[in-house]
C-alpha cells in the first residue's frame, strides 16, 4: 500500500467525505424535487416541443419532439464551431506567417492584430458584431452584393447553393464516403491522389443524378431574398467574431511551431541543395506540425466551448435552446443540464482523441 497507514487513513477520510457530500446532495435534490412536484426521467424527450427555432439544419416542425430540439441545437453548436475552427485556422495561419515575416512592417501588422483581438473579451466582440456591425448593414433592397450571386444585408448573408432535390441522400452519402475514403487514403498512403475520392465520388454521383441538381441563386422577392442558402445574422456575427478572436490565439500557436524549427535543420536542407519550397514541404512543415498539433487540438476544444457565448446574441445553440428554453418549458433541470454538460464533455473528449490520432500520424 502506497503512503503507508497514514495514507490509508487519509484516503478513507477523503472517500468518506466525498461520499457524504454526494449523499447529502442526493438527499437534498430528492426532497427538493418532491417538494416542487417534479418527476424525474427522460420521457419528456419524446413529447412535442412546439416552439420555433430560427436555424434548423434538419427538418423541424411544431410537432417535433424535445429530442429533435436537442439534436438541432447540437448541430447548431457543431456548425458554428467547425466554421469558426476552419476560418480561424486559415486566418491564424496567415497572421502567423505575417508575424514571422522578415518584413518589419508586416510583422508589426500581425502583432497589432494578435494583441488587439486577444485582449478584448470575446463577449464584447460578439456583441459588437451582432448589435453594432450587423445592424448597420443595409436593408435587403440596397444589399451589398458580389455580382448577382452573393448578397449581404441586415437579414443575413445570402449565398448560392446546389440543391439536390430527391438526390439529397445519395449525394450526401457520396460526399461523406468520398471524404472518409480520402482521409483513410491520406493516412495510409500519403500521396497527392488521396484527395481524388472526395472529388470524384460526389462528381460521379452528381453526373448520375444530374437531372435533379439545381443551382439555386438568391433573388430579391418582395422584401426579402429567396433561394440559395441564408446565413442568419446570429450565425454570421458569431462565426465572424469567434473566428477573428480564435485566429489571434491560433496564430501564436502556429508561430510557436514555426519558430521551434531550428535554423540548423534549414541550413542542412539548403546545403543538400533543396529548393525553398522543398525545404518548407519536407523539413519545416513536418517539424513544425509536431509542435503545433497538440496545443492546436486543445485550442479547438476551447473554440467549441467558447461557441456557447453565442447565447448572448440569440444564436440557437445547445445552451440557449436546450439548457435555456427546453429547461424552462419542461421543468426537468436535472435531466436537461446533465445531457447538455455531458454532451460538451463527450465532444471535448472526441476532439482530444482526434488530436492524439493526428498527432500519431504527424510523429511518424
Amino acid at each position, binding site marked *: 500500500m502506497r503512503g503507508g497507514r497514514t495514507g490509508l487513513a487519509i484516503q478513507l477520510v*477523503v*472517500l468518506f467525505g466525498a461520499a457524504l457530500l454526494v449523499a447529502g446532495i442526493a438527499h*437534498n*435534490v430528492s426532497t427538493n424535487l418532491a417538494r416542487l412536484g417534479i418527476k424525474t426521467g427522460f420521457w419528456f424527450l419524446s413529447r412535442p416541443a412546439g416552439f420555433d427555432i430560427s436555424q434548423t439544419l434538419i427538418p423541424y416542425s411544431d410537432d417535433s419532439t424535445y429530442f429533435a430540439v436537442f439534436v438541432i441545437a447540437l448541430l447548431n453548436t457543431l456548425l458554428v464551431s467547425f466554421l469558426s475552427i476552419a476560418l480561424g485556422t486559415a486566418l491564424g495561419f496567415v497572421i502567423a506567417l505575417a508575424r514571422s515575416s522578415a518584413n518589419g512592417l508586416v510583422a508589426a501588422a500581425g502583432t497589432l492584430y494578435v494583441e488587439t483581438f486577444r*485582449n478584448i473579451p470575446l*463577449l464584447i466582440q460578439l456583441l459588437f458584431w451582432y448589435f*453594432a456591425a450587423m445592424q448597420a448593414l443595409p436593408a435587403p433592397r440596397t444589399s451589398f452584393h458580389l455580382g448577382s450571386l452573393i448578397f449581404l444585408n441586415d437579414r443575413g448573408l445570402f449565398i448560392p447553393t446546389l440543391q439536390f432535390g430527391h438526390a439529397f441522400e445519395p449525394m450526401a452519402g457520396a460526399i461523406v464516403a468520398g471524404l472518409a475514403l480520402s482521409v483513410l487514403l491520406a493516412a495510409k498512403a500519403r500521396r497527392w491522389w488521396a484527395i481524388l475520392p472526395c472529388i470524384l465520388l460526389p462528381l460521379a454521383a452528381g453526373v448520375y443524378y444530374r437531372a435533379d441538381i439545381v443551382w439555386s441563386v438568391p433573388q430579391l422577392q418582395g422584401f426579402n431574398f429567396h433561394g440559395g442558402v441564408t446565413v442568419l445574422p446570429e450565425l454570421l456575427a458569431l462565426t465572424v467574431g469567434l473566428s477573428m478572436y480564435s485566429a489571434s490565439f491560433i496564430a501564436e500557436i502556429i508561430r510557436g511551431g514555426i519558430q521551434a524549427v531550428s535554423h540548423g535543420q534549414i541550413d542542412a536542407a539548403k546545403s543538400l541543395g533543396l529548393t525553398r519550397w522543398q525545404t518548407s514541404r519536407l523539413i519545416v512543415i513536418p517539424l513544425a506540425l509536431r509542435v503545433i498539433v497538440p496545443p492546436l487540438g486543445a485550442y479547438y476544444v476551447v473554440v467549441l466551448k467558447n461557441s456557447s457565448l453565442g447565447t448572448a446574441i440569440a444564436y440557437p445553440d445547445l445552451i440557449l435552446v436546450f*439548457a435555456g428554453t427546453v429547461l424552462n418549458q419542461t421543468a426537468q433541470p*436535472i435531466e436537461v443540464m446533465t445531457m*447538455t454538460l455531458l454532451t460538451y464533455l463527450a465532444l471535448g473528449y472526441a476532439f482530444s482523441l482526434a488530436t492524439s490520432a493526428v498527432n500519431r500520424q504527424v510523429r511518424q
Partner: protein
Amino acid sequence: MSAARPQMTQRWQRRVLDFLRSCVSTPFNALLTAAVVALAFWALPGLIHWLLLDAVWSGTSVKDCVGHDGACWIFLRAHAGQLIYGSYPEGQRWRLVAAAVVGLATIAAAGASTRRVGILSTGAMLLAGSIAIGILMVGGVAGLPYVATSLWGGILLTIVIAAWTIVTAPPLGLLLALARQSELPIVSAIAGAFIDTLRGLPLVGLLFLVIVMFPLFVPRGFETDKLMRALLAFTLFNAANFAEVFRGALQAIHRSQIEGGYSLGLPRWRVTALIVVPQVISVSIPGVINICIAIVKETTIVLILGLFDFVGVLQAGIADPDWLASQSVRTTAYVFAALVFWPICFTLSRIGLAIERRQPMTSGSSGASLVN
C-alpha cells in the same frame, strides 16, 4: 559618459535603417509594405475622425448624436453613475470608494510585508481586509444600511467578480493540484476527475448549472442569491484551470529538492509547505497571470445571467428607449468597453511575458492553451 550618447543614437539609427531595409528587401516585400501602408492610410483617418474629430463631446440627449457619423461619447457621460456603481443607492456610494481604498491599502500592505512577517500574517491581513470590504459593501451591521447584491453593478461588479475569483481560486487550485499529484490513488482520482470535468465544460454551461441546480443541491433556506452562485461557479471553474498550471510547475520541480528535504528530517507536510509550494508558485507565475487575464475577460459573461456588470449596464443603456435613435450609440458603447478592457489585459500579458523571460526554468506550458 561622453561616448554613450552617440552610441545610443547610432544603435537607433541602425535599427531604423534595418527596419526600413527589411520592408523593401525583395520586390515581394516591397509589395506587401505598400499594401500595409495603403491599408493604414485607408483605415486610420476614418478611425481618428470617428473617435475624435467627428465625435459628439457635448450635449445631453440622443438628439445631439443623431446624424453624426462619429462616436457618441455623451452617452457614456449620461450613464456614468450606472457604469461605475450600478444601481447602488446614491447616498451610500461613498462606501464603495472606502472599500476600494481599504482594498488597495490591504494589497499594498500585504505586498510590502510578505518578506518580513511570513505567509500566515499576510494571509490574516488579507482576510481582515476582505472582511472589512465585505462589511462596507453589504452592510446590515455597524449602522450601515443593508444593500442587496442585486443592486450591485457596473465596474464595481466587474471588479468584485474578478477580485473574488483571483483571491479564492488559486488556493483551491493549489490544493487540487497537490491532491492530483498525490501518491494516494483515491485522493488523486477524485481530484483528477473534478479538474477534468470542470475544465471540459464551457463557463456559460457551468454558470447555468449553478444558477439552476444549486437551489436543488442545498436544503431549503440555503439558496443564496444569484451573484453568490455565479461567484461559486467562477471559483470552481478557475480553480480547475489554476490546478492545471500548478500541476505543470509541480512536475517541473526536481525530485532532488524533495529528497533533500526528507534527508534533513523534515516531515512530509513541511517538505510540501516549505520546499514544494514556494517553488511551484514562483515557477507558475506566468501561467497564473494568463489565467488572471482570462478571468478579467470572463467576468463579462455574467451578462448572460442577467447580472448588470460593466458590459451589462452598457447593454441596458443601449436598449434604453431614450438612446435608441442613434446607430452610433451602440458602436460607441462596445468601442468604449473594448477601450476599458484592452489596456488591463494587455498590461497583464506584458507583465507575464516579462516574468517568463526572466525565469531560468520555464516549464514550457505556461497555460497558453488554457486561456480562452
